């Protein structure tokens, strides 16, 4: 009688755990992932999930001891039906469940909605300020000492009759910092053409070399001094990081430039360059958005453009109202970020994570 009751109770408890295995397309994505969910009896010893391909090949995608869980199978074929089999092992039994799901590519990454909204707000603000500038409104832009010093550096080089060295960073043309650096180079080349001061631009990549040559040549033409342009002063050194540094150090020690400009993306070589330049007694200006290299430049250079100042440099130097207007848009973005941080901190203190999750979703 007792044994019968025990078997009945086990049967009932087993029945309470309706074993399930489901698969569904991962929503709002590029259609390359399927979400698999399983819920089995707590007495499950091992779970194996397999994907059965069209050619009946079996690919094991997961092996686990968890009786319940979720797994995302990614890098799948888009818009295609995928078959899955779950094999659960109990003490003395084995259970097999099968399911299918079709991947579907979507037209919007929902998790990036927060990012999109912030981007749109910042872009609208920048365009608004640009339009205001076009209508003649004047904006106050704070002084950037590093950029104001450009005249001083060129003047010093002219007085000493020594060249100016301009290093456009060690990244290729696909880095926005290199583009920003080339825009600064354009203004610097124009001034050096006016002062008839030699400008040396060693490049690490051929693409940067081509762009730098074009930028400097146009700047000399714009300054009305095409005859002063020396194509051989803008040259390629090497693709190798430390070979490039060795080459520039050699130029600094041999040519003794009166002014060094390090603008763009820099890594471990930043301090080697800046300290060598310091040793030669040159007036040095650096600018980068690499937060880890900024302390080295701050210590070794006379002026440093920190982060956004590098990107603002071209607008600041051009004095073009439209470009200056866009800088006001940056300020609006900063104000928005400050407000979001304060609101986010307050909400988190009260245990509300809506804002954090909304914005953090963009980076997941």
């Amino acid at each position, binding site marked *: 009688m007792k044994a019968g009751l025990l078997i009945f109770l086990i049967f009932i408890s087993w029945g309470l755990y309706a074993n399930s295995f489901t698969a569904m397309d991962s929503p709002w994505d590029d259609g390359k992932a399927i979400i698999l969910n399983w819920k089995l009896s707590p007495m499950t010893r091992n779970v194996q999930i397999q994907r059965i391909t069209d050619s009946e090949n079996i690919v094991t995608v997961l092996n686990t001891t968890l009786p319940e869980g979720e797994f995302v199978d990614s890098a799948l074929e888009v818009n295609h039906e995928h078959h899955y089999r779950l094999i659960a092992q109990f003490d003395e039994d084995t259970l097999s469940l099968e399911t299918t799901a079709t991947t579907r590519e979507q037209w919007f990454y929902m998790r990036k909605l927060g990012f999109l909204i912030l981007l749109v707000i910042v872009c609208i603000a920048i365009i608004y300020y640009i339009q205001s500038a076009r209508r003649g409104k004047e904006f106050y832009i704070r002084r950037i000492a590093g950029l104001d010093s450009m005249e001083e550096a060129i003047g010093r080089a002219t007085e000493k009759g020594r060249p100016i060295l301009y290093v456009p960073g060690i990244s290729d043309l696909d880095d926005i910092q290199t583009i920003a650096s080339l825009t600064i180079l354009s203004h610097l080349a124009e001034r050096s053409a006016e002062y008839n001061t030699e400008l040396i631009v060693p490049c690490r990549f051929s693409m940067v070399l081509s762009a730098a040559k074009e930028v400097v040549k146009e700047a000399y*033409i714009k300054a009305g001094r095409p005859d002063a342009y020396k194509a051989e002063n803008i040259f390629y050194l090497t693709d190798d990081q430390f070979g490039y540094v060795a080459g520039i150090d050699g130029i600094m020690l041999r040519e003794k430039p009166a002014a060094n400009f390090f603008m763009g993306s820099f890594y471990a070589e930043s301090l080697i360059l800046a300290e060598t330049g310091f040793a030669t007694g040159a007036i040095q200006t650096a600018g980068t958005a690499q937060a880890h290299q900024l302390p080295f430049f701050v210590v*070794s250079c006379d002026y440093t453009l920190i982060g956004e100042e590098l990107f603002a440099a071209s607008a600041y130097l051009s004095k073009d109202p439209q470009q200056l207007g866009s800088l006001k848009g940056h300020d609006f973005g900063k104000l928005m970020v400050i407000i979001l941080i304060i609101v986010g901190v307050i909400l988190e203190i009260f245990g509300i994570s809506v804002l954090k999750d909304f914005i953090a979703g963009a980076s997941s």
Partner: protein
Amino acid sequence: MKRSLPLILAFLVGFVVILSEFIPHRPFNQIVSTLEQWFMIISGFAILLGQISLIRMNTHKIVNKLPDWQYYLAGLISFALMLIFGILWGMQETPGLLGSGEGISSWLGAKPFDYLFTNAYMPLSATLFSLLAFFIASAAYRAFIIRGLESNLLMITAVIVIIGRTSIGTMLTGWLPESMQFWHFPILADFIMEYPNSAAQRAILISAGLGIVGSSLRIILGIERSYLGGEK
């Protein structure tokens, strides 16, 4: 047209790349990788420009016997040697025009290109990188000279972090009771790195991010044109 076409291309490509960041559907999700492949192809061809520039510049200095012309000669010889060895016997698993050069490889212990890479290039590169240690010392010395309140604070913070990251820090304040653990040098150093330092770095990163948005927008809208070599 010479100026308009690049501007139109910059606008179209910039706009499509921004869209592709938010649209996972084909063809948008493949655009970035396709453009990156295009960039690699163009870069491949552009390498030739770099080599021509390198040879022309060095040859000019050698032929005209400009000061220190010997260094440029050494540079050209090194370039030519690596190029010739690479073409003749290849590198690593890739054979060259004369095959894998088993004879010369067994004599040197590696292919000539790989031999020079390991025994000449690598030590030179490591030597230059190791200079960083001495430059950090000289730069730190200048930074830590006490001139005012800011440099004083900088020096105190730096000393705490330096001591906290070495075994002497653990030894100096290891005796502190549980209630005063915050003042234990390693914990204090971790706190400085994790909170004030991270906060400052993130502020720089956020402002740089906004700068990138603004800069990109100026380029996409054609307001910023100096990267094309001229203004309007």
